[in-house]
């Protein structure tokens, strides 16, 4: 589902204009992004929890240099689906392959 499809679905479900729906969705995810950039986590009921975590530095083999390189630590987004969402979809047919 593309972003536009999501917007139109929300606008139908909430009975609001598409531009308003876009505004709301944008605001939600913009806020999420801001919080995540500050290293804060947010739980959204029915969807899951967004958090940040630090991925430690590690050594990897670089095929380009044909030698090992040290990849620096990184802060990454960690998403844990809420248990409801997880269980509901556990055995759903995913027929996109």
């Amino acid at each position, binding site marked *: *589902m593309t*972003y536009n499809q*999501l917007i139109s*679905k*929300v606008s139908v*479900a*909430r009975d609001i204009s598409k531009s308003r729906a876009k505004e*709301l*969705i944008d*605001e*939600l995810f913009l806020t*999420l*992004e801001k*919080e*995540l*950039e500050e*290293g*804060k*986590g*947010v*739980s959204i*009921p*029915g*969807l899951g929890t*967004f*958090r*940040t*975590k*630090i991925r430690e530095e*590690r*050594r*990897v*083999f*670089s*095929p*380009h*240099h*044909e*030698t*090992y*390189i*040290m990849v*620096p*630590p*990184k*802060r*990454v*987004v960690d*998403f844990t689906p809420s248990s409801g*969402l*997880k269980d*509901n*979809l*556990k*055995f*759903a*047919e*995913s027929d*996109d*392959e």
Partner: protein
Amino acid sequence: MSDKITFKELVEKISAKTEQSEQSTNDFIHELAEIIEASLGAGEKISIAGFGKFELRWMNERKGRNPQTGDEITIPGQNKVVFKPYKALRQGVNKPFENLESQIIGDEPENRQAESDSPLDSNAASSISKAGATSQPVSQTETTVEDLIIERESPVKSGSRILLNKLAVKAPTSDKRPADADDDLTSVFDQNLSRQENIAREVQQNRNIRWSYTAAAVIVMLSIFLLVFIWNQPEPPREQNVSSIAEQPGITQVDDTQETERTNQRIEDNEQVQNTGNDNAVPPSMEESETITNSDGDLISHTVSAGESLWTIAQTQYSNPYLWPLIYKANQIDLDSPNLLSTGNDLKIPALDNPEKLTQSEREKVALGYISVYDWILNNQPENARYFLWAAGSFSQEVLRDASENVNEADLAFATKG
């Protein structure tokens, strides 16, 4: 590790921004979650511009252990909801570490790399490395391995291993992808490749930066060398002047007269007077031999490096940090503040024969140093000045007495009392 904001706070923030009631924001988010769930259930991916995408990924049946009993169990295949952040979000979240770059660390034994694999991944990683045995470069990269794990779509349930096989084998010659390759796989490829390119570029930059660092270091060292050279040239004659002046009896008399009228004496002169006034303590012949045999002996040149203070320099030069005012005194003209040295500056460091056992004149010099520090401190942090006066007194009571006319009475009381 991270703090969390509550859902309520989130709702409040969004309500304020979008000018609607919290109730309706709440409803909107729940509605959105339901739409996403329904869409995921239908096997779709949900892409949110500038943020990321949600998708279902099929996890194959695998063996596991019951952590309580240790029994081996079979975990049935199931779907997993996966969120993949887009680049903007990834970069934003990684802000604190964005300046870190990869470093080349040379060859490492294969097994060490295997150890560094996180235990979570090891299961999948081993299956892939088995699959990619024919195309080593790809399967050896941990990033690739991880990407494959992370980016794998929820594939046809039975065929995931085969797909991965294909993936691993094809990776090196990605240009000649067969047309029937799945679009998702293509994107996986491209991302893999671009990430590898990124790493390569990073390392390249790293190299360039190192080059420029080396060049800069060489230039700095050259300029320091030049400075030292220029500095040293006029030095010896000046020193000899001083010592010769000190030995001329006529001048000594002049100094002596100065000694009697100390009221508006400059600190510079002070030192000279001290030199000449203590000729009894240090025989002239000895002083002469000192200046001649090592013209650097009286004043050692020292280039300030980063992180040094007068205290640490005194520590290294005299192994007694409390003698630092001696250095300050010798460089007073060049230094704005005893607390502030600029890196690369050359300091003149008066030589001491035996820092552990100071002669009378040396003690007085240190005391004079403390007095001049006191003068500076008095102008800048008057409340601390008395300690330096006290220190001056502890080195030489005479100097303290001489200086007593120009100091704060309360400070003097403190210095003489203790």
